[in-house]
């Protein structure tokens, strides 16, 4: 991927185009999922955890912890894999079947670096921003939902958000998002780039891309949580 490269300008243009296709075009789906995830989480936490002894602030606290640690980076990664992973595998697979990749290779172009590298870079560049947007929307929708659905006072919710806040959890989410973005884009690109056959193969490659990405995300989630939350690994 890193030998016989094209001009830097070409990669910048390709990466920017992929940032729009992969990142900007995913905002709507990520926003919808995040808004509902945050709203539902606040109601469930209210019914599960709050009591006259514990207080309503737990709703804000619970939504914050759940969102930053898992929902925004990991659950959104599954959504991202479904949307972007299948798209990458389908696009590259279709290019392979219709000989478009061969047409690039005939021109002496390093197809892996020209086609795959910008997708990986764009994923790594944009997914952390999607995670930040997701976390913000989920927490904000939790605030609105808890106020109108279960009558938690905004002040209590915001107190919960601030309660025992460790900024490291935000870094933790960002680190995870970078790893997930790399896994999703590289696995999906591999599945699409190396297919052979016809239209059925493209469908199978897309399915394998999503399935493998999801498994990789869950495995990476477990390993990263063990590593990054361990006191000796805290950066």
């Amino acid at each position: 991927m890193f030998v016989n490269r094209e001009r830097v300008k070409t990669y910048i243009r390709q990466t920017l185009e992929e940032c729009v296709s992969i990142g900007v075009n995913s905002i709507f789906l990520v926003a919808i999922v995040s808004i509902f995830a945050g709203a539902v989480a606040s109601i469930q936490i209210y019914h599960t955890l709050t009591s006259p002894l514990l207080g309503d602030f737990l709703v804000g606290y619970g939504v914050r912890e759940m969102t930053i640690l898992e929902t925004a980076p990991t659950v959104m990664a599954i959504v991202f894999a479904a949307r972007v992973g299948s798209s990458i595998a389908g696009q590259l697979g279709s290019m392979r079947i219709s000989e478009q990749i061969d047409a690039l290779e005939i021109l002496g172009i390093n197809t892996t670096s020209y086609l795959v590298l910008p997708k990986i870079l764009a994923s790594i560049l944009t997914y952390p921003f999607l995670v930040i947007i997701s976390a913000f929307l989920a927490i904000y929708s939790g605030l609105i939902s808890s106020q109108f659905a279960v009558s938690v006072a905004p002040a209590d919710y915001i107190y919960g958000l601030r309660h025992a806040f460790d900024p490291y959890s935000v870094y933790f989410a960002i680190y995870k998002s970078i790893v997930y973005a790399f896994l999703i884009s590289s696995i999906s690109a591999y599945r699409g780039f190396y297919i052979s056959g016809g239209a059925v193969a493209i469908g199978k490659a897309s399915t394998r891309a999503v399935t493998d990405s999801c498994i990789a995300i869950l495995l990476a989630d477990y390993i990263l949580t063990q590593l990054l939350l361990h006191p000796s690994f805290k950066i």
Partner: protein
Amino acid sequence: MIEFQHISKAFDGKKVLDGVSGKFEQGKVNLIIGESGTGKSVLIKCIVGLIRPDQGSIAFDGRDFLNGSKDRTVGVRKEIGMLFQGGALFDSKNVEENVLFPLDMLTDMPQDAKLDRVNFCLQRVGLSNANKKMPNELSGGMQKRVGVARAIVNNSKYLFCDEPTSGLDAKTGLLIDELIQELTYEYDIATIVVTHDMDSIVSIGDYILFLHQGRKTWEGASADIFHVDVEALKDFLFASKLMRMAKPQA
């Protein structure tokens, strides 16, 4: 001139090409013919470097293509144009961007000069007013013509065509054949066409290489092909009812 010696290739232990040798000269339309599954497309893909042969050698104007340095291989590839069976146009780009692409990637020409060259090539293949059309808006014949324009835009010295007339009606196929022949003579290109289209064999083949079961069984000029006493070639040539009816009686 392209010379290849003893090209062999096997997939999963099954030999597809078995020691095929040949020579394709500049300014000639060279045909590789044979039944489906005889290794025609594999041979052309070996020559252009899309598939690495198990053994053999390939040289473009004396430049070793298989064992040369990476720079030399890339240099040779930049002189190759290829028309694919399905056109292989980039479906996210319009006609103009498709033809412009090799110039964008391989040259430092100013944008105006590149666009002039693109327009000239599109005009040359008879598609002057299709610049902004997307590939899915074009007919099969038009897609092939855009493919030809893209293949020659970079002043290619070697033009490879993989079944250029497949999927086209006889009239459109003939137009594509004539276009390929005209460009070959006009720009002194070494053109290699993989085909099993009898019209192409009769009308444009300056040199013909017949493959049968992965081996070169006959080579020669199109004028001689109907007078050869090679059983496999006769079976191939007179497989269709129409050709049997037109066959000269002994």
